[in-house]
């Protein structure tokens, strides 16, 4: 049972239900209008349209599953942080406090949304849309299992790795826009920092990804994962894996690289003036990006869904992604935040050479024919 057939069946069911009414109307209404209804129903059921709807349905299913994972990740982070810091974490809402995140989301919905008078209204409104939209779009590109990804009649999306990182790179733009539009010095500094940080960490990140692609010889997640059936890329490309982890932490703005929103100095940085659910979406989007980063790390370096067939492939993938996330939480639980110039230093002077070295290793390995 793969995602394509499930979504095809679902879409088929939906189209049947809709067509039942449309044909009914066509039967009830005589004349040319009724015929128009009939032809509408025929159009809906035609293979081309069905294909598009099926792909949409796939995206919706994939994103729903991914968002459920995101919520679970937030819960895991809260529980783990609590244990790292010797307290309990969410406790009251639901079993072991699992539904605490939903309660918090509900609270965000109830809060007033305030727009600062001097804010640039259009950019203020559009920045979160770009940020959230682009981040959720990443989720659609990552397949969770061999058959649980977006496919076109069983053919996976070509170049999904490139697509995922292209979308990843949209965020600095929206953050800069948000920081500028809020018309506040703190947000402006936060936006600037964020843009500088993300841009400088894109390069080592993409270089380390490039080494994986060199070894796998494909831009598709499915192919990359299939290529790791024998050995995870984290083993030969260990340096690249470390660089990738550090860069992903910086990309998703988590401690110790969360200085764009350093709450102690910049009062949550570029999100300062956003309130209510807009802020809530920002917060959630951070975790969406966190999940995306972990999932990509699992797919590119940790062998994706390859594993003993005790449990389904999808679970192997999720377990690996969660383990990466646990490392993120652990880092967050024990390290302070570093400074802007230091983070740029680190990115340009340490990580970039390491990423280059890693690329060289990958090329050498590929040339020697090991992979």
């Amino acid at each position, binding site marked *: 049972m793969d995602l394509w057939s499930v979504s095809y069946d679902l879409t088929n069911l939906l189209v049947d239900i809709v067509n039942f009414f449309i044909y009914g109307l066509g039967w009830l209404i005589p004349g040319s209008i009724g015929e128009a209804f009939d032809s509408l129903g025929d159009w809906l059921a035609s293979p081309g349209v069905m294909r598009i709807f099926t792909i949409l349905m796939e995206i919706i299913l994939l994103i729903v599953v991914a968002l459920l994972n995101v919520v679970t990740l937030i819960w895991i982070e809260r529980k783990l*942080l609590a244990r*790292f*810091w*010797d*307290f309990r974490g969410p406790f009251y809402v639901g079993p072991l406090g699992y539904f605490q995140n939903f309660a918090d989301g509900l609270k965000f919905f109830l809060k007033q949304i305030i727009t600062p008078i001097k804010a640039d209204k259009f950019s203020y409104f559009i920045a979160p849309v770009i940020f959230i939209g682009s981040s959720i779009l990443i989720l659609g590109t990552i397949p969770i299992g061999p058959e649980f990804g977006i496919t076109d009649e069983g053919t996976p999306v070509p170049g999904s790795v490139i697509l995922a990182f292209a979308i990843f790179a949209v965020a600095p733009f929206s953050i800069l826009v948000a920081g500028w539009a809020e018309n506040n*010095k*703190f947000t402006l*500094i936060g936006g600037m920092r964020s843009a500088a940080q993300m841009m400088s960490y894109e390069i080592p990140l993409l270089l380390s990804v490039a080494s994986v692609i060199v070894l796998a010889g494909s831009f598709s997640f499915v192919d990359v994962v299939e290529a790791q059936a024998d050995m995870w890329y984290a083993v030969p490309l260990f340096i690249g894996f470390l660089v990738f982890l550090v860069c992903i932490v910086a990309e998703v703005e988590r*401690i*110790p690289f*969360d*200085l764009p929103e*350093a*709450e*102690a*100095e910049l*009062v949550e940085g570029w999100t300062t003036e956003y309130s209510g659910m807009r802020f809530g979406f920002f917060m959630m989007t951070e975790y969406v990006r966190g999940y995306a980063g972990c999932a990509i790390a699992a797919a590119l370096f940790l062998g994706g869904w390859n594993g003993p067939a005790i449990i389904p492939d999808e679970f192997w993938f999720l377990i690996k992604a969660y383990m990466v996330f646990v490392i993120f939480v652990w880092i*967050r*639980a*024990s*390290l*302070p*935040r*570093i*400074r*802007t*110039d*230091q983070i740029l230093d680190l990115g340009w002077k340490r990580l970039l050479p390491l990423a280059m070295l890693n690329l060289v290793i990958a090329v050498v390995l590929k040339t020697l024919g090991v992979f």
Partner: protein
Amino acid sequence: MAEMWINMGPQHPMTHGLWNLRVKVDGEVIVDAMPEIGYLHRGMEKIFENKNYTQIGPITDRLCYGSSITWNHLYCMTVENLIGVEVPERAKYIRVMAIEIQRIASHMMWLAAYAADIGLLAGFVLAMRDREIMVDLLQMLSGSRLTYNYSRIGGVAADLPPEFERDCLRAIDFFEKRIEEHETLYRDSKIFLMRSEGLGILSREDAINLGVTGPTLRASNVKYDVRKHNSYEVYDEMDFEVQCHSDCDVYGRYVVRMNEMRESCNIVRQALKKMPKGPVRVKTPMYAPEGDAIGRVEDPRGEGIMYVIGDGTDKPYRLKVRSPLFVTLSAAKKMLVGYKVADVVSIMGSIDVCMGETDK
């Protein structure tokens, strides 16, 4: 980017209270700084002039919520100097012990606040947790968790509760182990060193001239501690070392405070060991004589002084409070200029800001 003024405060997580640090930045580099205070001004000195000597006691607790026993004790000591009362020996030891426990709690609170400033949330939570050990001791001793109101003019409110000595020693031993654990989060963390070394340098001459006191002064290479060099109560019978550091930077202040906590543990142990039996309080007259007196103590944040003038009635004619941070904050510009905006939190966090005593 052009130069611009940034208001860090009054509502800013860095301030730990209510004050406004205006910094002028050129890009991310600070070129000027101007601290502005007064948001928490409660007119303490005017209130003191309108209450009698007994009633002032609990109000002095509110001078600094972080180390209320110290201020309460300073007030009592000053008034005792004024009316010339000799405190019973046991009360002196109990006071020294309570002050040192309070010093540990206060430094722990500083550690927590500072860790939160630099984004080390583990440090915040764990330091607050271990501060509880000391707060529980003080609660056992005085019956309150924050504003203890334990010193009285002429002694302390009550003798040690039963089994306090055992619990206290146990807690101190436990706490010393915990300090080591805390140190690994800071001393052994490269990122913490990146955030603290070479920042907020206040040279020895500047520190003395600006009137900075306490751990900040000692981290600026001046080995001066009121407890040692201008001893009060029974500190001259205690064996402890004045902690200082020659780095003059944020890291030096961190080292001084951590080592002071260890010294405080030693002092508590010694005080418990040497404590004689006897009464803990003497009856003191309601009316103070004419004249003036000063009391000088080592607050966890610096040198606390009270200057009291009595006019023969039961109310002080004038009670002036010298709060250490009031002066230390005025040195903010010297410490900040030349560093980055991101360092403001680290530098200002390192002087342990408490607005209660600053604004009075």
